[in-house]
């Protein structure tokens, strides 16, 4: 029978300690590793973690599988960048407008889509996100349409007259990303350990039962969506400032929505660490495949780059990365339906019972 969590008291503190240690190590990381490329990959991982954790609140805990989160991501990126570039409003103010806009958008979308269940909800969420993309694309006066917005620069962050950072290096983005990632993880933790989390999960497990236990479904689904939209928009704002360019084809497509869902599915849905695991798998894998690091690695191991296999790998591996990504998705769904984290847990549990039995 499945026995869940609640280990002995002394052990309960272990994850907390590990989390604190990991955070401290990550804080010290830039002092040790100065390679901007490594920092950049870390920042991409943070971004992915934030996206995944944000989606997780709605999709993972509450069980509302939105495939339209590009709408909130795009809203966060666009509003922040538009306010900064066109109105000169500093992003740390503009960001609040962006997340507020995303929440309003979310509530409107929610009022439309939450009446629908199952596949209908999924399709509706895609449709709404597509409408938002098309509006952005065609409302040129405001959004600059397909040409997108190129940011001239991020103004220095000042407290009083002291300049905290002028954003000229990776490091401030690294810390901002890390902070955001930690924050969203904490939000997930807080959600899981509060009335909200109990209610969200109850809705996920059985809407009718939840309803009969005094849970107002519409209100709590909207709360979940609002939290999710808030942080997804925030990740969008972070993305926009970091990359310095937004256009509909990079921040608002169905592809963006799907990739957000995949972070959680690959890692493990409805768990605090799932999106972290998903990000740690997907981002480095995509990087390695994209720049052909795998082929390079094989060559370094002694594979002859001029051999037929070598040539083939060199020529095709970089082209094949989306293919490998697709295969990964199929494999995970077929063989690890609870994600990598769920799979690892199941395997270790099996091992544990085997040792116990022995």
């Amino acid at each position: 029978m499945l026995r869940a969590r609640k280990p002995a008291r002394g052990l309960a503190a272990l994850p907390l300690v590990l989390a604190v240690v990991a955070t401290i190590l990550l804080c010290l990381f830039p002092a040790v590793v100065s390679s901007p490329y490594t920092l950049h990959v870390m920042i991409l991982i943070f971004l992915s973690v934030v996206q995944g954790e944000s989606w997780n609140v709605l999709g993972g805990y509450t069980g509302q599988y939105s495939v339209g989160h590009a709408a909130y991501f795009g809203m966060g990126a666009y509003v922040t960048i538009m306010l900064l570039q066109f109105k000169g409003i500093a992003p740390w103010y503009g960001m609040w407008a962006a997340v507020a806009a995303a929440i309003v958008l979310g509530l409107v979308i929610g009022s439309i889509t939450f009446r629908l269940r199952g596949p209908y909800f999924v399709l509706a969420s895609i449709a709404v996100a597509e409408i938002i993309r098309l509006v952005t694309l065609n409302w040129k006066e405001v959004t600059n349409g397909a040409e997108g917005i190129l940011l001239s620069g991020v103004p220095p962050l000042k407290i009083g007259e002291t300049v905290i950072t002028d954003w000229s290096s990776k490091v401030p983005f690294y810390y901002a990303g890390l902070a955001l990632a930690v924050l969203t993880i904490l939000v997930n933790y807080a959600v899981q350990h509060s009335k909200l989390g109990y209610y969200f999960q109850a809705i996920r497990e059985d809407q009718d039962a939840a309803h009969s236990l005094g849970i107002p479904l519409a209100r709590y689904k909207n709360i979940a969506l609002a939290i999710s939209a808030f942080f997804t928009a925030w990740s969008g704002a972070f993305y926009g400032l970091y990359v310095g360019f937004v256009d509909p084809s990079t921040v608002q497509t169905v592809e963006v929505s799907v990739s957000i869902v995949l972070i959680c599915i690959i890692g493990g849905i409805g768990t605090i660490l799932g999106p972290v695991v998903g990000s740690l798998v997907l981002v480095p894998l995509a990087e390695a495949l994209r720049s052909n690091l795998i082929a390079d690695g094989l060559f370094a191991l002694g594979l002859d780059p001029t051999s037929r296999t070598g040539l083939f790998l060199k020529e095709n591996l970089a082209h094949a990365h989306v293919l490998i990504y697709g295969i990964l998705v199929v494999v995970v769904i077929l063989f690890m339906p609870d994600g990598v984290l769920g799979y690892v847990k199941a395997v270790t549990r099996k091992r544990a019972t085997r040792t116990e039995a022995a």
Partner: protein
Amino acid sequence: MQKRIASMLAALLVPALAAAAPVKIGIINSMTGPQAPIGESLTNGMKLAEEDLKAKGIDLQLVWEDDTGKPQVGLSAVEKLASRDNVVGIVGAYTSAVTNAVAKKANDYKVPLVNPVASKEEITRQGYKYVFRVSATTEDYAAILLDMANSLGKAASIAILNENTDFGVSGAKSAKAIAEKRGIKVVFEEAYSPGSPDYRSTLSKVKAASPELVFMVSYVADAILLMRQSREIGLSPKAFLGAGAGFSTDKFASEQEISNAVFSSTQWTPSASWPGAKEFGDRYQKRFGKVPPYHAANAYAALMVMADAASKAGGDREKLAANLRAGKWDGIFGEVKFQDFDGYQGQNKHQMLVEQVQAGKFVTVWPQKFANGKAIYPFPGWKK
């Protein structure tokens, strides 16, 4: 086994040890993703450049990076090239969206970037000191066409139809501005989402507006679709003007039924009178089985320029930048010289050409100096 994995990981993570200082250049291109079809032309062009450079004795080492058409991935590529691979310079990227992000980052790193083909004006108007562009700008695509049209006979009205993408919108914008400046009335203006199988209703609207000139900005496949459907509904203005991209491809030209007498602006054609252009065209055709689009030539030129400047810089990025600023090259792409003018920095004043499809072949018809044929004007109408 574990040891092997460990050493493989090490191989992945530790930067390759620098050998006896080859000229190491990074390349960022859309090898996969929606932009890959044209990305491939760039790759091919640069492969030929690589051969030529090696033949010239330059110990060239290229690091290829795929940006998958996404700006943030382009950034990853710059980061990796600049800090991990320690390239001396970068050639890329293809799309304007990625180049926007990449150029800024390269400039921050002070890694000289030569952009082959992205045409968005802003890219070289940001005051970047390390960003250079061989490509003409979007405005040039429209300007040269309207110049030519004007020389053939003053047109009274124009319809502008473009795909709703960065390239399409900025092309249409400059077309409109130039048309208005020259007193050509814009009677129709619309952006369409690329990839729709049916443009007939849009084209019916164009027909109803009866313009003398029809100006279009579209990629390869849509260009063919638009012309096919124009023929179907019998849209027949005085001239069809295509702003580069889809209209200047060999594939388009070979669709004789619909491509005849269509003008298009282009940065390069094998029939241009620049030294080596024809040879490049033949070689490319032989090697890759297709006529090179201008993207390939742009990419070839960009890499040739970059490698030449870099081989004289000895791995020093500052020196490379200085070489790029000071140098002048002549080759299949005509003269390449990076200059500061009209708010641009490091911009090559590239001479655009207008070509016209005549019996399935491109004939350069404008400017006079480069022309190797006479323009058919006005549009002779559709063959039944």
